[in-house]
């Protein structure tokens, strides 16, 4: 894996970086919306969901890439889904073992990582055609980009909706929280505003998205 990485260093770095900003799965490709909206009502939930998805994404990308010569084209989608479903089951039990409270907060959305179009999309569009090391980096980059986007959303919603960040109160007692922000409609509004912000950057000065490497504005 290290050797292949050294052979094509420029491409490998790019495989990792592109998921963070230029092809950010949430803000640019608009993939995997369901979990993004559903579990971003607090920063800690967003972080946990992002990490769980990244874990599945990295492992499924690696395994799909390893098996890419052995799987017949006709059954490839079914195979990918089976691989993803197995890793999601692992994550489900893992989270249950680490924190039962978190497992309850995320609920069915851990199982629903299976149908996150981002993971199947990367398996089909990237991992089934590329080397193991590149697929690994691609999964890592996309996973981190996804986590970053979830955190952007979760932080805004938690600060406005409950006046706290990662459970730590930020405002004096007189602060009246915008309860609507942690309700479903707040999710739609926050994501809509983030997308609007990114569209605005793109429409206004196209050079900006190349110059800023991270997702935090």
């Amino acid at each position, binding site marked *: 894996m290290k050797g292949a990485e050294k052979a094509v260093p420029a491409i490998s770095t790019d495989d990792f970086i592109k998921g963070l900003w230029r092809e950010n799965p949430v803000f640019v490709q608009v993939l995997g919306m369901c979990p993004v909206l559903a579990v971003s009502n607090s920063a800690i939930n967003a972080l946990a969901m992002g990490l769980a998805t990244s874990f599945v994404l990295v492992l499924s990308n690696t395994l799909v890439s390893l098996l890419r010569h052995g799987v017949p084209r006709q059954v490839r989608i079914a195979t990918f889904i089976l691989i993803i479903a197995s890793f999601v089951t692992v994550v489900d039990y893992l989270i249950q073992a680490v924190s039962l409270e978190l497992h309850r907060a995320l609920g069915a959305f851990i199982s629903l990582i299976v*149908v996150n179009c981002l993971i199947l999309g990367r398996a089909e569009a990237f991992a089934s055609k590329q080397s193991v090391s590149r697929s690994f980096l691609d999964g890592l980059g996309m996973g981190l980009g996804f986590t970053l986007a979830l955190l952007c959303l979760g932080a805004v919603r938690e600060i406005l909706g409950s006046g706290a960040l990662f459970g730590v109160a930020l405002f004096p007692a007189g602060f009246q929280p915008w309860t609507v922000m942690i309700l479903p409609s707040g999710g739609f509004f926050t994501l809509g505003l983030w997308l609007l912000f990114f569209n605005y950057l793109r429409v206004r000065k196209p050079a900006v998205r190349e110059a800023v490497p991270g997702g935090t504005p």
Partner: protein
Amino acid sequence: MSGESLWSIFLNASLVNNFVLAYFLGICPFLGVSGKLATATRMGAAVCFVMLVSSLCAYGIHRLLVAIEAPYLQLIAYIVVIASTVQLVEMFIRKMSPALFRALGIFLPLITTNCAILGLALFQTNKGYTLVQSLVYALGAGAGFTLALVLMAGIREKLELAAVPDAVQGTALTLMIAGILSLAFMGFAGLGA
């Protein structure tokens, strides 16, 4: 939970906890296929149909997995069965009613990756519904999905005629409308309790 009346299950799934606007399930088709009213209606019908069939299957699998004591296979079994059900339904409709098949078109295969279907299977298992309750729940969820999709398509058709700034075009605008719709649906809270 399983003592709920059928009517309250239906109201709950379709309005109070609308799958799209309260649970965020099936957002991809909601954003993608809600451009035109006609396609939105067909997509809704297709989802309703697949929901009913997969709800039936999920109930059977759950019983089977409980019987052989293998709950860790739940997720894998559900996704495999949903994918193959969609395939079977597609073949069956093509054979039995070519007109319906043409009307549903590309939407049928796309439904496999619609998280609302898998979500429905998982929720009905978690809530411990009986067979009839599961079917009513699936019907309500499908009706709610169709309602949200049709409302959205109607609004977007009107918006075509409005002058919108460049930066707001596309998904950003759709999401904000969804937010307002979701606010409106919050008014149903407490109904049928």
